[in-house]
């Protein structure tokens, strides 16, 4: 990795990578809000450069990280950093991304660097989630009704995709629920299309693991 900090540099880069993975493309515009220790020390740790490097798709050991701000600007990425407050419950090393991609995808992501380079995305577009970026994952908001989880897991099983972990977050009974499914294998595009065709499923995002 590129120094100086596992949490504030390598972790930040991985957060950027995961955020770009959730968006599904390289962001054209990134509004970044930094919370807690990230807000206080981001310049000294190169957290800003590492976050942008991650959004550019670069790995934590990429020697371009120290120059990421300039290189991203040259590549046409618009970005801003604002120190802010994500609430008392937020981890001290938290960041909020508001991302827009060249294809017009938009996404709001909150995540934290939780130590030793490990990360956790806790919110995607207002849905609570837990994404760590260590395994390929599916993010599936759907209507809360009996049988949806069984349908999704059956389709994965038929394609020999093993579920490593699964969490379901629900806003309320019968409202929107979100499955976050970590898999041992990447999920091919045809499986994602199949899942998207299920009536109660609102959206399927595939998020690959980050190094």
């Amino acid at each position, binding site marked *: 990795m590129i120094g100086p900090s596992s*949490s504030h540099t390598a972790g930040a880069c991985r957060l950027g990578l995961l955020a770009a993975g959730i968006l599904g493309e390289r962001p054209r515009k990134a509004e970044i809000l930094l919370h807690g220790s990230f807000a*206080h020390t981001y*310049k*000294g740790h190169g957290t800003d450069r590492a976050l942008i490097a991650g959004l550019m798709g670069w790995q934590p050991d990429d020697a371009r990280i120290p120059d990421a701000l300039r290189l991203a600007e040259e590549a046409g990425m618009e970005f801003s950093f604002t120190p802010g407050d994500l609430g008392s419950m937020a981890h001290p090393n938290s960041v909020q991304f508001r991302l827009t991609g060249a294809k017009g995808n938009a996404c709001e992501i909150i995540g934290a660097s939780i*130590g030793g380079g490990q990360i956790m995305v806790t919110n995607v577009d207002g849905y609570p989630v837990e994404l760590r970026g260590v395994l390929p994952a599916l993010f599936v908001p759907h209507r809360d009704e009996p049988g949806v989880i069984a349908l999704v897991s059956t389709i994965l099983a038929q394609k020999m995709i093993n579920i490593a972990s699964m969490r379901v977050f629900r806003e309320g009974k019968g409202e929107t629920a979100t499955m976050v499914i970590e898999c041992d294998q990447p999920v091919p595009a045809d499986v994602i299309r199949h899942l998207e065709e299920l009536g109660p499923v609102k959206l399927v995002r595939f998020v690959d693991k980050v190094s």
Partner: protein
Amino acid sequence: MKKDKLSWARLVSEAEAKQLPLIDYLLERSAAQVETDKDAVLKKTESMLQVMEEAVAYGMTGVKSNSGLTGGSAKKLKEYITAAADKRSQDLLGPVAGTAVMYALAAAEANAAMGRIVAAPTAGASGILPGILLSLKENCGVPRKKLVEALLVAGVIGEVIANRASIAGATGGCQAECGSGAAMAAGAVVYVFGGNGKQIGDAVSIVFKNMLGLVCDPVAGLVEVPCIKRNAGSVMQCLLAAELALAGVGSFIPADEAIDAMDKVGRSLPGGLRETAEGGLAVTPTAKAWTENYFKKIHG
């Protein structure tokens, strides 16, 4: 049934049960974990050693950090030792420890200057293992293959620590970062000189005995003061523990229990002493004055 935590003692006994040399068992296990073969694991580990060597070389050029707070101490130490007229008084640490300290400073300074390093186990503690391994290479003629295996042993020790406790300063203080780095390196040294699994565990335990309670108190929250010199200090703890373990002195507290103690101590540290820059050296008058000035400069 309660889930068993990863345990150094268990790894050692599993290797014995399989009648495999410890290194073969650890290698087999690492390969299985990431579904690859032993050669791939060794190759990956060797590439880490390579990055460590490059980090040390970069640090030895005397790089300064972005903030301007630190840098150049490894180079200064080298010049001092090289120019020494009287070796007895000016190379107090002797060649093995002296070189290890110098290289640990170099890698830690490369880290502070946004150079490429290997987190070992974290960026804050990234000087200790390179310092030790490269000194063994230079001063004791340890072949590269052995160093790669030693690095693998260190990695497994780090895995046990991360599994039972934490390697993050924000969770466990500096004992969890530099303490863990020194424990990993101590295990590596014991392995290099032919110590067995129990002796490796003894070295891990002795390091934590001597580093328990060490707080994480970085000036302005930067990985510079005191982190860089803590890497150098940790090298000394590592060599001390390794020498005792190799001599068969042993440790009354087993490694796994020492790691658990480190975890408990870490969690009972007040927040101000866990990487928040709100305690310890970070709030001394000198640190506060520098920090105020620095934040004014970078935030305008």
